[in-house]
């Protein structure tokens, strides 16, 4: 067989009473990649991660970590991963330093120099007690404990929520270093710019189901590019072009969205009038996200 994927989820179903949280979800993370796990609030990201950690049972489908069962082999698997929950709760009486040392000791010890440098980089005061930390600082405690551990897979649930921009930049740098060291990262988020900046591949889910999976490049093929252009003469006729949707037409200025297949013809027509200024924007993740979700809900309502 091929090498075992760090994360391999197929057709995962999880119900809580009568609500179905996960409804046939697929997620595959390859070794050494930073994988973005995207979805709106309540779409099942955290539930998926908790199934992968063996905290929840699955009702149907397949969930494997490194080819093993996340519940039966929980202890062995947990030696190879570190987890940062979305809403980090700390022990109120323990200081941040004590918490980091406790969590890393559970995972089998830590390189003290690395731990200290991470505490430094994230500007964390380790002498403050858990109850006194702000949300961002609680997040930092869990992040330092995870990053300092020598593990193959990092499972991060909306890790940067609550971090200030300076620490957030430091966090992104740290994730880049982790990738360079060959670690695999599964990063759930609804901050799309973060996923865009950090991730090699991504999976978009909505209502407990996978709507899209692939690299950003692959996903962009599925959507339209925004073209904004100012021309030398009046805007030529574009409405007969299939795959081009004009959203704004203002004398010599045009804003339209073009599907990949129509790009060639669109450019030819604009160039024939004479282009003064041209602004071509690849689809942002926001557009991908919204388009996917619109498609998904459209299917469901029809």
């Amino acid at each position, binding site marked *: 067989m091929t090498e075992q994927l760090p994360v391999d989820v197929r057709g995962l179903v999880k119900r809580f009473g009568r609500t179905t949280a996960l409804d046939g979800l697929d997620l595959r993370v390859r070794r050494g990649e930073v994988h973005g796990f995207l979805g709106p609030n309540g779409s099942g990201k955290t539930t998926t991660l*908790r199934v992968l*950690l*063996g*905290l*929840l*049972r699955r009702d149907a489908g397949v969930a494997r970590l490194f080819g093993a069962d996340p519940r039966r082999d*929980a*202890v*062995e698997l*947990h*030696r190879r*991963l*570190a*987890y940062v*929950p979305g*809403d*980090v*709760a*700390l*022990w*109120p*009486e*323990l*200081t941040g*330093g*004590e*918490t*980091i*040392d*406790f*969590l890393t*000791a*559970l*995972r*089998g010890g830590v390189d003290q120099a690395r731990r200290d440098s991470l505490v430094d980089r994230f500007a964390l*005061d*380790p*002498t*403050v*007690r858990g*109850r*006194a930390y702000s949300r961002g600082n609680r997040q930092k405690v*869990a992040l330092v404990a995870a990053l300092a551990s020598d593990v193959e897979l990092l*499972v991060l649930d909306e890790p940067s929520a609550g971090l200030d921009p300076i620490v957030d930049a430091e966090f992104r740098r740290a994730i880049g270093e982790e990738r360079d060291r060959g670690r695999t990262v599964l990063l759930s988020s609804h901050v799309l710019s973060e996923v865009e900046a950090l991730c090699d591949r991504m999976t978009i889910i909505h209502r407990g189901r996978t709507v899209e999976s692939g690299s950003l490049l692959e996903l962009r093929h599925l959507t339209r590019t925004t073209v904004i252009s100012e021309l030398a003469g009046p805007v030529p006729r574009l409405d007969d072009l299939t795959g081009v949707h004009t959203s704004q037409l203002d004398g010599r200025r045009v804003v339209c969205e073009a599907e990949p297949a129509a790009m060639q013809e669109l450019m030819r027509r604009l160039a024939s009038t004479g282009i003064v200024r041209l602004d071509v924007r690849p689809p942002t993740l926001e557009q991908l996200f919204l388009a996917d979700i619109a498609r998904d809900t459209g299917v469901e309502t029809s």
Partner: protein
Amino acid sequence: MTPGWPSGTGLLLRRALRRDRVRLPAVVLGLAGTAALSAAATAALYPAASDRAGAVAAVRATPALVAVYGPLTGAGSAGALALWKLGTLGAVAAAVVAVLTVVRHTRAEEDNGRAELVASTPAGRLAPLVAALLAAACFAAALTAATAAGLVLTGVSWADAAAFAAVWGSAALVFAPVAALAAELAGSARGAITAAVLALLAAYVVRAIGDADDPQRSWLVRVSPLGWGELVEPFGTHRWWLLVFPAAAAVLCSTAALVVHGRRDFGSGWLPARPGRARGSRLVHGPAGLAWRRERGLFAAWTAGFVVVGVLCGSVTSRVGGLVDGPRMREVVAALGGPQAVTDAFLAAEFGLLAAVAAIVVAAAVLRAASEERARRADLVLSAPLSRTRWLLSHLVVACVGGVVLLAAAGVSVGLTYRPGSASPLAEVGRSTAAALAQAPAVVLVACIAAALYGVGRGVAAAVWPVLVAFILVAEVGPVVGAAPWVLDLSPFTHVAHLPGGTYDVMSTLWLTAIAAGLVVVAVAAFRRRDLA
């Protein structure tokens, strides 16, 4: 204070009562029902007035019994005898519930951040505190009414019933604002509960010393909030005006809490937060170490309490020394749990009570696992290479070790202060420590019940409280009211040896241990199978 309630108080009070809609009525019905059942059962147990008069005289002549349970007033009415043992204990129970209610709606809300949401609304700054105090006052009023009604129904005269019920209600009324003040000064909900319960313990000990010292009303009884209830003499003179003291204390304490609340920063306590250690100690490198690190402060406070009670019992018992040993006394003592000599019976009864308290502390420590899960801290720990079995067992073991330490502390301190005259001090320490530790199997069994319930489901875990209360009532009140043997057999506290004086039955210890082991298996099997939520 401004006249009229702070805005939003009514809404917050309704929300508090709604959150407590099961637990407070359950406590009210449980306490009132116990009082009514005791009254009905005792009337059947001592039909003749002469029987009762004899029993009353015997109790009154035993300072040690009076110290633990309070004085027995009223010349031999059935109600007086029936409710003597319940009077002070019930007042303590009512006060504990009031403390928990107030802290639950004030400091605990502040700790988990919900209070901040409320504070950001146009609700008055003092509204949450006032609402919590009013919720506790509602509890006190309901308890008083239900208890009085229950007693009247079982044939107690209405004045006696009302006075007895008012004593319970007033205890709740006094300690609710004490808890509010503790919640203002302490840095956390657990700190607040510990401080308020220690204040309650101090009140109990002060009045116990006073009662033992001088049955004719020592000044110590007069300064203790729990002593005020005794002085009302529910079955004697009915000194109603003395209820002014608890009312005044409640007003004073509430005002103090409101003043402090007005000046305090949200989320902070009286003591400024100090920086802690930047690195973890080697001790806290495993789940048991973490559980111990979190529980040690609480266990230290409880150990101090157990030592104080132990010292008190030891020194009070020394004076009893064969004071009364007539046939009537034997009758009473037999009803209290055994045909031993008076002092032994007293010490055994005392260790039984302490075991009940230890069981409460231990069950709460086991249920800390449930709050770890609710706060999602369990996610952090269980996503590390640590099995669920080990995590659950580490909570159980720390709780059980703590419970055994509490019992041993009580045993040693009784032994050090009890001077029967003949035995060497060392032998006495050994004897009373063994007697205290003889209760350990029951305490451990309660811990295992808590673990099993938690293993089945986080929501089910709290069911340990009604179970534990039933165990304690059966063991403490059952023999007095002549409960059927099969009822007595239900409580683990009736199966442990009542030492000194009783016989140690190896078989029952083995049985308790076997049941505990079975419960641990259930706990682990169920916990491994279920979702963490």
